[in-house]
C-alpha cells in the first residue's frame, strides 16, 4: 500500500524541500518508486535539487490544476539526472516557475478532490511506493487543501519562538482534518543542544512523535539547494538519520 507523505511547516525556509528531496532519494536508493509533488508555487526549489531545468518542464503541477494536462504529463522522471544510478525511480511533479500570478494554485475546497484524484492517478499509473508532497508553508488555504490527502503529515520546525507558536496552531488545525498520522522533525538544531532533551520537550509540548532531530550543518547550507545531501555525503551521520526517518515514515 502506497503512502502519501506531506512535508509541511509553519514557516518558509525551515528545510521542507531539502528534507523531501533527501527522503525521496534515500527511498529510491532502497529500490522504491517515489514521486514528489511540489505544490509550493511561492518559492519552488525541488526541481533545482534534482537538476531539472525549467526548459525541460513541459508541464507543471499548476498546469494540471488548470486542466491543461494529465498529472502523468507533469511527472518528470529525474532518476537519470542524479550522479548515481538508483535501484528505484524518482518522479517529480514540479511547481510552476514562470509567473506566480497566472499560476493556478490549490485554493478552494473543491481542489482537494482534484488533488486527491491526481495523487491516486499518479500512484496507480507509476506504480508508486511513496508519494511525497512539498507544501506551501503555514495555514493558508493552499496549504490546508493539500493536507486533506495526506496519510502522514511531517511537520518540520526549527528552534525559534516563531516556530513554536506557529507549529502549535498548525498542529491543532491539522488534527481537525483527520490526518491519520502526524509527526515532527526538528531541523537546524544547533549542535550545542542536547538532542535527546529537544526530542522529549517537543514530544511533551505537541503531544506528538518526533521522528528526527537534525542538526544545523554548514555542509547542508553550502549545497544551497543545488544538490542532495544524502547523495553527496552517503556516510554522514545526518544521512543515517534521514535514512532512519525515511524508513520510519514509510513503514
Amino acid at each position: 500500500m502506497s503512502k502519501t507523505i506531506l512535508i509541511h511547516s509553519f514557516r518558509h525556509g525551515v528545510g521542507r524541500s531539502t528534507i523531501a528531496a533527501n527522503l525521496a532519494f534515500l527511498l529510491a536508493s532502497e529500490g522504491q518508486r517515489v514521486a514528489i509533488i511540489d505544490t509550493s508555487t511561492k518559492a519552488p526549489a525541488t526541481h533545482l535539487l534534482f537538476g531539472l531545468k525549467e526548459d525541460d518542464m513541459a508541464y507543471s503541477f499548476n498546469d494540471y490544476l488548470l486542466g491543461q494536462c494529465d498529472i502523468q504529463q507533469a511527472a518528470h522522471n529525474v532518476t537519470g539526472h542524479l550522479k548515481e544510478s538508483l535501484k528505484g525511480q524518482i518522479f517529480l511533479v514540479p511547481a510552476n516557475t514562470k509567473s506566480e500570478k497566472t499560476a493556478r494554485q490549490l485554493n478552494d475546497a473543491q481542489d482537494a478532490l482534484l488533488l486527491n484524484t491526481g495523487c491516486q492517478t499518479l500512484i496507480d499509473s507509476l506504480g508508486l511506493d511513496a508519494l511525497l508532497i512539498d507544501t506551501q508553508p503555514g495555514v493558508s488555504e493552499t496549504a490546508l487543501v493539500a493536507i486533506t490527502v495526506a496519510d502522514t503529515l511531517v511537520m518540520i520546525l526549527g528552534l525559534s519562538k516563531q516556530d513554536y507558536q506557529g507549529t502549535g496552531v498548525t498542529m491543532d488545525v491539522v488534527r481537525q482534518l483527520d490526518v491519520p498520522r502526524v509527526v515532527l522533525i526538528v531541523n537546524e538544531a544547533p549542535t550545542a543542544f542536547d538532542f535527546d532533551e529537544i526530542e522529549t520537550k517537543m514530544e511533551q509540548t505537541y503531544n506528538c512523535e518526533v521522528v528526527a532531530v537534525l542538526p544545523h550543518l554548514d555542509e547542508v547550507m553550502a549545497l544551497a539547494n543545488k544538490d542532495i545531501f544524502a547523495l553527496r555525503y552517503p556516510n554522514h551521520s545526518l544521512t543515517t538519520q534521514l535514512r532512519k526517518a525515511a524508513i520510519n515514515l514509510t513503514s
Partner: protein
Amino acid sequence: MSKNFFSTQYWGRLSITTKFTLAVVVLLALVALMALTSFLALTSVRRQTEAVLLTNPQSSQPALEMADIEDARRQINQTGQSATTVLLVTIAVTVILAFFIVLLLNKSITRNINRLTNAATQLQEEKKRSDNLLNVVIPIGVALSAEQNFDRLLEKILLEAKSFCHADAGTLYLRTENDNLNFVIVRNDSLNIAMGGTSGNSIDFPPVPLFNTTGKPNHSNVAAHVALTGDSINIPDAYRAEGFNFSGTKDFDQTTGYRSTSFLTIPLKNARNYVVGVLQLINALDQNTGQIVAFSQSLEQIAASLSSLATVALEAYIREQNLRQEIQQLRIEIDEVKRQRQVTEIVETDFFQDLQAKARNIRRRGRSSRLEESE
C-alpha cells in the same frame, strides 16, 4: 610599512649578528673585486710581455725597448709586486672600512655584545617557558575544557595552578553579577583545609565587594584590586606590603596560626577583557628546602597563561549552560490563549468547514478503495 634604509631606526632594529654579517659580506665583496681585477691585470701584462718576448722578439715595439730577457723578467716581477702591494693595501682598507661600517651601523659594539650574551640566556628562559607552556599549561587547558562537572572544573583550575606554582595554599574567586568576588574554592595544604568544589565543605567567608556602599572601587583588597584593574599582583610578603589591606588574611592567620607570606593574585580575564574571577596562590614553597619564597616572575607569566585557558574553559561551560536554559525558556514561549484564538479563527471559516467535509469524504473513499484492494 616602507623600509627606510637610511634611517638609524631601521639599522638599530637589526641584530648584531645581522650587522656583522653585512660588514663581512661587504668586506669579502671588496676583496674579491680587488683580487679579480689584479689577477686580470697581472695575467694580461704577463701574457702580453711573454708573448712579445718569446714568440716575436724582433718585430714588436716593446721588445726592442728592453735590454734583455732579464730586464723583462724584472719588469714583470715589479708589476707583480706592485699588484700585490695594491692588493694588500686594498685588503687593509676594506678591513678598516668594514670596521667603520660596523661602527656606523652600531653606535656601541660592546653594548651589543653584552646584549648578545643576554639574548642567549634570555633565549634559554624563553625556551623553558615555551616548553612549560607546551608540556604543562596547554595539557591542563585541554583537560579543563573537557571537564563536564562545574565544581570539578573550578577545583581543577585552582589545584593545577597551585601545584604548578608549588603554592601551599590558594583561593579561587568568581565574580557575581552584583560585582562581588565569591570564594568558590579554598585550599590550604599545611592546615589541611579544603572547602568548596568536591570537598563537600561549604565556605563561610563573606564575599569581597568590588565597590563599597558608596560605589567607590575597593582597591585595598588585593583580589578586588586585581579584579578591578585586570593586572596581576605579585607580593613577596603580605605583612610588609604597602597599599593593600591584608586584615582578612591576618585575622585568618591569627585564628589558625598560619603565616601567609607570598601572594600571587591573577585575574581570570575573558576575550573582552572582563574579569570573571580571580585566582590567588599563597606561599610559594622552594622545591628543595620547602621554605616559603616569593613567586618567581617566570611562574607569574605561566600562571597568567594558565589563567587565560581556565577562563576559556569557564566561559565555554557558562555558555553551554545558558544555551541549555534557553531551550526550556523557548518551549514556554507558546502563548496558549493566542494559539486557541488563531485556531478558532481558521476552523470556523466556511472554507474550513467545507474542506473538513471534503477531507472526511476523501479519507472514507481512500479507506474503502484500500479495503477493496486488500480483499
